[in-house]
């Protein structure tokens, strides 16, 4: 529109012009972010997975709110945990989306076009992770706040009545969203390093969901304390308004979860640099 380059036929000597490097076009980190944002929002599967995540969290929250009775034996359950019980299901949706964002490019072959456009490669991974993390965090936090308020509408006359201003409640809701975001980032990294959608989903289920359950059955104290810092356990701590005895501290859990996500993305970055696309 604004450049002569929009009309290739008008340029007499492209080779010479290129030597002068007069093109306004250049790859910048901001532009790669923009590209990844465009990619994320231009796929129907992104909207379906994110929409399902929101609907599941809201629906489970409403069921919890409407069916709760003070004498039902759940009064010791954390208020935020109870209301956001749907997080378990919505995390599965965002995890799948995280895997689709990276592994999906390999299964369709799009990765070759992406890496040919950004041959330094790593900006593509960082941009994917950043765009995805911000989207998941914002969407999840919005949904979680809505769910909490909607559920509390029904809980106001029970022993689970709480407000956003109560100690730990707002922090736990934010923590819940941060936890979901970081778990999904682990999945995004797995997708990038395994380059296969089913492979990454299987690995996530086996490694992140099942492995700690198996390990915690072992009769060793050291294993038991280590399992507290595993991704799902750490995310659980972040989403609780009142810390349980024996759980990791919120700070420790956040740090652990960041390290897990960092390890997943770091390994993916290392392999992305080395491997043939």
């Amino acid at each position, binding site marked *: 529109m604004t450049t002569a380059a929009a009309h290739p036929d008008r340029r007499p000597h492209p080779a010479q012009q290129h030597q002068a490097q007069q093109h306004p076009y250049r790859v910048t980190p901001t532009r790669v972010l923009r590209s990844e944002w465009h990619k994320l929002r231009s796929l129907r599967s992104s909207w379906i997975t994110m929409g399902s995540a929101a609907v599941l969290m809201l629906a489970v929250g409403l069921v919890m709110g409407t069916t709760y009775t003070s004498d039902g034996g759940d009064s010791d359950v954390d208020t935020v945990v109870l209301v956001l019980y749907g997080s378990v299901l919505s995390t599965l949706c965002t995890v799948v989306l995280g895997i689709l964002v990276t592994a999906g490019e390999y299964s369709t072959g799009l990765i070759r*076009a*992406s890496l*040919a456009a950004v041959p330094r490669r790593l900006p593509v991974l960082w941009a994917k992770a950043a765009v995805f993390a911000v989207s998941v965090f914002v969407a999840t936090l919005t949904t979680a706040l809505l769910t909490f308020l909607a559920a509390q509408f029904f809980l106001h006359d029970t022993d689970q009545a709480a407000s956003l201003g109560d100690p730990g409640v707002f922090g736990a809701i934010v923590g819940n969203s941060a936890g979901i975001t970081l778990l999904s980032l682990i999945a995004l990294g797995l997708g990038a390093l395994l380059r296969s959608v089913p492979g990454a989903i299987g690995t996530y289920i086996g490694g992140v969901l099942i492995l700690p359950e198996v390990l915690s059955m072992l009769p060793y104290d050291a294993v038991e304390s280590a399992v507290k810092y595993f991704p799902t356990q750490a995310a659980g701590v972040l989403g609780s308004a009142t810390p349980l005895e024996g759980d990791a501290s919120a700070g420790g859990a956040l740090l652990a979860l960041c390290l897990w996500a960092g390890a997943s993305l770091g390994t993916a970055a290392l392999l992305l640099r080395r491997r043939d696309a």
Partner: protein
Amino acid sequence: MIRAYELTKKYGDNTVVQDLDFTVRPGTVTGFLGPNGAGKSTTMRMLLGLDAPTRGRSTIGGRAYTAHNAPLTEVGALLEARSVHPGRTAFNHLMALAHTHGIPRGRVEHVLDLAGLTAVAHKRVKGFSLGMGQRLGIAAALLGDPATLILDEPVNGLDPEGVLWVRNLLRSLARQGRTVLVSSHLMSEMALTADHLVIIGRGRLLADTTVTEFVATAGGTSVKVVTPQPDALRELLTGPGIDITTDSAASPDELDIRGTDAAHIGRTAAAHAIPLYELTPRTASLEQAFMDLTQESVEYRITTPEPTGALA
């Protein structure tokens, strides 16, 4: 300008590309030929920095592909396998690529128009035919208005009209001074499109020549003659520019004569009372010459020196 220096790719013990040295010059269409599995696609992926060579290197526009700040303006590529997410629309696919370079929406619409995809720009690629997919790939290659084009089998799946479109497009891009490297396993198609040929077989360079040269050496016409007196006829016909060969082991009576026509051979034989059992003009096909060349890949090699300069 594309240059490859001893480009080599091994997967374990399997050498896919070995010591490839070639130069692709601007202003011409260079056909990159070889049978399936010859290493064409691997070579192209190495040129684009997608696969790392085991040994050797390549440059495009004087620099390694990965060293360019705006690679899409330097090289436009169409890769053999589709590299599009089927769930995205053609427009969104191109727009996502365009964003990485700050290429405006107008340019995306322009290349969609150029490729004849405007009507389906907002349809998901999932429903595209093979030909439409190829057109989208070519539109993506043109997106950055690149000085060099690398196209892997661009006419694959195109209907005759599409083939003609690609042929004219490539020629006009070359006329604008661009470097065009286009791979194919069809010699006949390349003879119509390319000016220059780089032929590989089993990962090795077999020929780096012009189409004219290749046609002259490999595709000339000859006359098949069967006579009981081959030696006598050979003696009578021998002269400058005339080449007579015979497969003496299999059929000593059969001669393959180049450089003259059937009429001259027939008159000469009649004048000297040499009986002819057969006199058949033959046009060796380019396809046949190409197959002969690539079948004996490893031993056989023709290299015609470039008039504009020696190979690097």
